[in-house]
């Protein structure tokens, strides 16, 4: 039986259907103009695109416990997490379309979304979001607030030094940070058993004297419970936790991935396991009417469609803008208070 209230269930559902539909729509938009021969430089969305369909439970189930002042660092597959953290959907979409009104004025792109209003950031370098999350937790500790930090990474990232060093650092200083591993079984073409020693990534926690919890299914309610406990621990100043969530990759690693390395059965299994469908039945069990479910979903879809339409209407940046924003504006570090040695009596 779910521990979450009906309100929580509907919130999680709304979040997950938003994230799923968002990825489906982006897929459509991205592939437009890249057909029939896939050309990465064509179409309305520039660059690489890593979509997270199948990861929604890990975004919604964790971030539902977070406030705007809590910090999240996400991965190269960030959209579902950004949506769950409350990142401005329109400006995020504009960024993905490379527009001037995007979160980063078109400079960052889909792997580099920054929304300081809700303390969200992400990075395209594997596991490199971990140290900044630890730093966010350190700031909370030093300032004696009760905010926490969450760092997301893939199961392929648990072999990276930045993650392991972050675990030790967080443990040594008892920092309010939660590491969330999204295990989708694949690191691009590398199945996890080929490159990682443990089947359960949460075991990484064992060597660093912190709890490690694995949520074996991607049932969002199990994720919600595990994350609630870990985030509560962090908020109560009881130290860091590692959570691994089994998710699944419904689309390729990136758009255009031929997935020739992936057994068809694995693809089919991923398609069948659908945490959103499962949550729908939980909602019905909790007494939510079908009409209400449809309404939540339709509203979410409209919000996504609206964000995409808005983003596509936004202007592209002026080329000259490429030269701005390297440093803060107005310029810093220009104060001149060098002592005048002659005036203070320095000898010639």
């Amino acid at each position, binding site marked *: 039986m779910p521990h979450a209230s009906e309100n929580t269930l509907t919130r999680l559902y709304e979040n997950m259907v938003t994230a799923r539909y968002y990825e489906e729509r982006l897929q459509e938009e991205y592939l437009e103009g890249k057909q029939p021969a896939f050309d990465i430089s064509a179409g309305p969305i520039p*660059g690489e695109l890593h979509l997270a369909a199948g990861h929604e439970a890990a975004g919604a189930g964790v971030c539902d416990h977070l406030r705007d002042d809590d910090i999240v660092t996400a991965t190269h597959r960030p959209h579902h997490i950004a949506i769950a953290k409350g990142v401005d959907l329109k400006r995020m979409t504009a960024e993905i379309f490379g527009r001037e009104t995007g979160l980063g004025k078109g400079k960052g792109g889909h792997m580099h979304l920054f929304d300081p209003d809700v303390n969200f950031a992400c990075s395209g370098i594997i596991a490199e979001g971990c140290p900044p999350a630890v730093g966010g937790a350190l700031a909370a500790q030093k300032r004696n607030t009760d905010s926490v930090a969450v760092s997301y990474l893939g199961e392929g990232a648990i072999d990276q030094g930045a993650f392991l060093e972050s675990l030790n650092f967080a443990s040594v200083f008892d920092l309010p940070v939660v590491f969330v591993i999204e295990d989708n079984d694949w690191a691009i073409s590398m199945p996890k058993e080929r490159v990682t020693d443990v089947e359960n990534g949460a075991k990484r926690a064992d060597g660093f004297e912190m709890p490690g919890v694995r949520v074996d299914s991607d049932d969002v309610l199990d994720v919600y419970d595990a994350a609630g406990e870990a985030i509560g621990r962090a908020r109560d100043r009881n130290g860091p936790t590692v959570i691994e969530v089994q998710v699944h990759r419904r689309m390729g690693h990136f758009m255009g991935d031929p997935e020739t390395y992936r057994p068809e059965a694995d693809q089919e299994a991923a398609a069948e396991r659908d945490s959103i469908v499962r949550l729908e039945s939980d909602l019905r069990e909790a007494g939510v009417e079908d009409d209400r479910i449809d309404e939540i979903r339709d509203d979410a879809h409209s919000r996504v469609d609206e964000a995409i339409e808005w983003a596509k209407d936004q202007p592209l940046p002026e080329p000259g803008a490429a030269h701005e924003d390297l440093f803060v504006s107005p310029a810093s570090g220009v104060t001149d208070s060098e002592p005048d040695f002659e005036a203070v009596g320095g000898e010639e």
Partner: protein
Amino acid sequence: MSGAESTRELTMSRAMVSAIAHEMRENDDVFYMGEDVADYGGIFDSTQGLREEFGYDRIMDVPISETAYIGAAVGAAQAGMRPIAELMFVDFFGVAMDQIYNQMAKNTYMSGGNVSVPMVLTAAVGGTYNDAAQHSQTLYGTFAHIPGLKIVVPSTAYEAKGLMHNAIRDDDPVLYMFHKRLMGIGWMPAPDGPKTPVPETDYTIPFGRADVKRDGEDVTIVTLGLHVHRALEAAETLASDGISAEVIDLRSLVPLDTETIVESVEKTGNLVVVDEDYRSYGVTGEVTARVAEEALDALERVERVAVPDVPIPYSRPLEKEVIPGTEDIVNAATRTQ
């Protein structure tokens, strides 16, 4: 280009792979480590088909642990093997910088020449497809700056093969930087040019020998990688404006063929250095300084065409603004006249 009897047209990736395969057949000590190099065949086709021939033991998918596997290549090389390690994107060097900068590059010197590190580090470089600041750099200058690494940058299939044969056989660590846009990958169409006839034989191109890709009289354009092709295109335009441009493909940054550059500038009097790396403290400054040191009197005008000192932005108009285009080269060369 050598007149070997048996040649075929190859894309740059096929040429690179054919050299690796040849060396692996000849020498059991050669093996390849990287992410997605086995079943995927390299995200940029750098190992396409090799796992099928050599198996997982010699074409090794490795954990996403660049420090561990690049460092393991250093150690295996010092133990007498000839490993090749691949950085999927050169931009990821940051997580393994110590193994590259402090171990791979310095062990020979610090041991007084008693230790050698006969390994190759391959790395995909470059932009033009909007992959933004963490996936679009070339970082030529970053690596060429540290003493102890030989650096090669093929611009065509012919160079890709000849440089790879030499890289694997070289007893020193070699960084082999291949431009994604030149590889001939299905989903990232290459410009005309990198696909060339390639001899079947195992020819070697020595490091430190630049190639004059086009003869000219009025201005010397020195460049490397993708921009060799942009410079050749620019030279065509310049020719129709009555300006005769010589185009030099550096092919290796360390060692650098100063002689060929200086000879050309002594003829033309004008130097344009074109680089897809950042402008400051990089290839354009180094080449200019060498010419100034060797042939200051011959030098009338200098132009540097490079990425202004900002990270590579994502949005198309922004990326286009910062990565030197053919027009930028034409304009710079014209300004020297």
